């Protein structure tokens, strides 16, 4: 109950002027950049206070942890805030209206693209799925959305950009959308509507006419802050766990071992990464610090990204939720098609980035 109460408390109406909010956002931004610029000296100073042997495994691991934790959390906070503001322009209902009755092909592309910007929460996956399908969004187009929304999100893109550079982030964006578009299109071509649970096929969405929300810039800044609190509050544990795992890899796992298992020479590591990734459940926030550490140790980019996509896009908890609307056969097709797509991405990446 206490959590609910705190959720309500935050929503107290306030009558501060718009200029106040904009000034506040600007000051917050300036503070952010000032602190971010000081992260290296501060973390060096903290590590130098610890009684550690310079260059030892432990020192390297701790240094990685002390520097990366605040860095990643700060970058994430900024990206999530920005995306929260952008997302206030989108809603699942509006996206659905755009996609309803769309033909396959273009519809799949639009669905995957909108998947990046439309607010999406996995707890809402079933109402969203039913809401889309019952309103005349083709099944394959719905799948394109459902694959892209969790996989190509602001957390994943922001962190990839921050930790691995814009090239990797852009390629991930491109290939992530590619998998969502192609997999959704294939599922649409297979005409599997009959494999939906029966009640889903029978539901007809009622017409809904939501009151138009006239959002002011203040509301959008507020939406950004709300997203920040909500998402960062939820994923920080994952990030710290991910960075701790990354720090361990960074300090202790020998490069030769990792390169032999996950390096380019080992072609079988791509399918292995996809298979291992399915039962693992994490989100982008927890997995990217690990990805960064693995790459630093000579793992091949395609292999690591295939692993990451598999962990994020194919998760057991999500399948259990989707079982309410999809038959087991359809879930199997979904996993198969998406898994094959990710496999292709992994091989292609390893081929391109040599």
């Amino acid at each position, binding site marked *: 109950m206490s959590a609910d109460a705190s959720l309500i408390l935050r929503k107290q109406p306030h009558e501060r002027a718009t200029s106040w909010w904009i000034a506040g956002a600007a000051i917050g931004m300036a503070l952010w950049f000032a602190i971010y610029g000081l992260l290296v000296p501060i973390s060096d100073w903290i590590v130098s206070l610890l009684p550690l042997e310079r260059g030892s495994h432990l020192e390297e691991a701790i240094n990685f942890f002390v520097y990366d934790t605040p860095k990643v959390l700060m970058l994430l906070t900024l990206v999530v805030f920005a995306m929260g503001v952008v997302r206030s322009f989108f809603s699942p209902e509006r996206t659905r209206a755009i996609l309803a009755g769309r033909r396959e092909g273009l519809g799949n592309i639009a669905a995957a693209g909108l998947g990046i910007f439309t607010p999406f929460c996995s707890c809402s996956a*079933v109402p969203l799925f*039913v*809401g889309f399908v019952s309103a005349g969004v083709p099944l394959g187009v719905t799948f394109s959305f459902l694959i892209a929304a969790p996989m190509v999100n602001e957390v994943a893109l922001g962190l990839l950009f921050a930790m691995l550079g814009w090239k990797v982030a852009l390629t991930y964006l491109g290939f992530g959308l590619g998998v969502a578009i192609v997999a959704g299109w294939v599922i649409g071509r297979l005409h599997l509507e009959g494999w939906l649970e029966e009640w*889903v096929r029978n539901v007809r969405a*009622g017409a809904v006419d939501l009151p138009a929300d006239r959002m002011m810039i203040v509301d959008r800044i507020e939406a950004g802050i709300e997203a920040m609190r909500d998402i960062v509050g939820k994923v920080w544990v994952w990030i710290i766990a991910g960075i701790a795992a990354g720090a361990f890899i960074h300090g202790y796992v020998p490069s030769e071992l990792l390169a032999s298992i996950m390096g380019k020479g080992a072609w079988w590591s791509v399918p292995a990464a996809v298979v291992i990734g399915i039962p693992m459940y994490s989100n982008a926030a927890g997995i990217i610090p690990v990805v960064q550490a693995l790459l630093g140790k000579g793992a091949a980019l395609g292999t690591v990204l295939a692993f990451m996509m598999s962990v994020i896009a194919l998760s057991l908890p999500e399948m259990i939720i989707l079982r309410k609307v999809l038959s087991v056969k359809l879930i199997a097709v979904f996993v198969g098609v998406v898994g094959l797509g990710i496999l292709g991405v992994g091989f292609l990446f390893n081929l391109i980035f040599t």
Partner: protein
Amino acid sequence: MKDVKVLGPGCKRCEATEAMVKSAASKLGIDIKVEKITDYAEIAKFGIASTPGIVIDGKVVHAGGLPKEDALEKWLQA
């Protein structure tokens, strides 16, 4: 007596929304009957694609995320 339905499968936000509706109504002194709709098929019939949703006297006023308190009060008074 206003008939309020909170649509949602039972996530934390849905419960928070229900609590907000009740506290707003008692603050305004409006007599309401709150019903929670958790069945997915029933939710879909209201035409929303994101939860929690709020329906007042048969009309959908909100879908997706927590409502704003001032907006909630306005809907209840309407």
